[in-house]
């Protein structure tokens, strides 16, 4: 049994596997299948300052080895979250990460202030949601806007701050460096790629929002390339996600430079995926005589 503990931005995780935001609700549903304490951490559903209804249905479309969603940050608002959801989660024995989203700088700031006063272990700042009209991804699309928002949030909270980056950009490395320069404690990547599907009979986009966010195994190679590039360019820890479904994928992510790995879409078809990944990773480490999972982080040897 190798040591699976990792430390991300000063927070200790019992293992590197974290459930991805938006794919695990506030934890209550999957808890009906297994205890949450098995997880390294949970990144909770994207939360905004005020309640949001989200987008009209259909919100889901299937693609080859992937899916599109246009949920649009449906959530009960941060105050409800802190009052009704968070207390329940605090004694679950796993790291609680609030995923913070918004549409204007001011929302983000008020949200961060609320979260700062709460018991969450970490804030994941989502500047990469492709499913909201204003804000969301646009903040993550340029170095300037990404810097600006991280600067403001950094002032509002002393919680460990992880910034979640969008892959829909020309140069994710510069954006990662910008948020690092503004004091982000970690970055997580990738959020979803913008995608579309059309119903050829009705001639309508399948999603009511026309386009949505692509996730699942289809995007894994894109995520891995970005994680590798970013990990080589920043000093803060990188959390890798995007299409991770097997323990082998998690190891690829860590070899590429990820300290933690999030699992999202895979849980929809295999609810036990995070546990299987933890187990498979552990066995592989043992088989290879590696005593500490930390030893493999960033150990890919480029040609």
């Amino acid at each position, binding site marked *: 049994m190798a040591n699976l503990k990792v430390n991300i931005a000063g927070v200790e995780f019992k293992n590197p596997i974290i459930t991805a935001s938006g794919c695990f609700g506030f934890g209550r549903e999957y808890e009906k299948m297994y205890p949450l304490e098995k997880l390294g951490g949970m990144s909770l559903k994207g939360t905004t300052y005020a309640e949001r209804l989200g987008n009209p249905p259909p*919100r889901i479309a*299937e693609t080859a080895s992937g899916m599109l969603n246009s949920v649009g940050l449906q959530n009960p608002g941060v105050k409800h979250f802190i009052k009704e959801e968070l207390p329940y989660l605090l004694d679950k024995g796993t790291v609680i990460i609030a995923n913070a989203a918004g549409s204007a700088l001011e929302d983000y700031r008020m949200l961060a202030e609320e979260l700062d006063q709460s018991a969450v272990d970490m804030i994941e700042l989502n500047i990469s949601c492709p499913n909201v009209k204003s804000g969301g991804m646009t903040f993550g699309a340029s170095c300037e806007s990404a810097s600006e928002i991280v600067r403001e949030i950094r002032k509002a909270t002393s919680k460990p701050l992880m910034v979640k980056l969008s892959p829909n950009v020309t140069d994710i490395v510069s954006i990662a460096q910008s948020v690092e320069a503004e004091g982000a404690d970690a970055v997580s990547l990738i959020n979803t790629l913008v995608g579309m599907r059309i119903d050829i009979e009705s001639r309508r986009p399948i999603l009511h929002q026309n386009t949505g966010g692509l996730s699942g195994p289809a995007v894994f190679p894109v995520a891995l390339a970005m994680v590798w590039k970013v990990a080589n360019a920043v000093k803060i820890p990188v959390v890798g996600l995007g299409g991770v479904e097997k323990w082998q994928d998690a190891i690829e992510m860590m070899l590429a430079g990820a300290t933690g790995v999030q699992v999202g879409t895979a849980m929809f078809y295999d609810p036990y995926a995070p546990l299987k990944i933890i187990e498979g990773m552990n066995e592989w480490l043992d088989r290879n005589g590696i005593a500490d999972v930390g030893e493999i982080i960033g150990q890919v040897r480029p040609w």
Partner: protein
Amino acid sequence: MSYIQNVYPIQSRDAIARDVFDYVVACPDIASQSHAGQFVHIRVAGHTLRRPISICEVNREKGTLRLVFEVRGSGTEAMSMLSVGDLMDVMGPLGNGFTLLSPDSRAIVVGGGIGTPPMLETAKHYAENCTAILGFRDAAHVILDEDFDACGCDVRLATDDGSKGHHGFVTDLLRQRLEEGGADIIYACGPKGMLQAVAAIAEEFGVRCEVSLEERMACGIGACLGCATPIRTADGGMTYKHVCKDGPVFDAKEVIF
């Protein structure tokens, strides 16, 4: 309550109408917790998302579920290729199911096309106190009428082209049935247009009505918020509830069609 997910052997497979398949799966742990109106979520090789399929019948003694589905696209097509003895990856039981009154209440189940299967387990509960109003495109698409018959229901058929039963819609038959006498509850599953019409008639006659809705799903348990459906709030406003967790069965009054 807990959710179960595992692979289970297929015990029987039948083609019961053009493109409609009837499977019995041996999954005692899921069956023992299943109720009328709930559904299971089935993983299909080569597809990212599971397919939601209603529970048509539960046999707790035998530990089996009966699932009846129509081939609509590549996922249901792949499901229909599974043979007896193959393993099916099933997650369930999911959703809330129908509210069942005492078996001596007068119930009406209304099934439209492939919306018929989930009504069977419900009809069984009320047996001869149940009227089953079933509508199909044509005689070739009629399914399960004998099963409803066998549970003692008063079965009334309608087809769009009149090739079997009443020539017209289930709503004609529903109105007729309500004019014949009262009912304590109406359950309906089928195309949205049909559900809306059934709900309107139920309202008109002042009968409680539950409808089973469909929406595209990912997780099936309320974690992804993918399967939103617009619902009327108490104050007349709108909110989204989730078909997989808050449904698939909703009080017809709160559904915004």
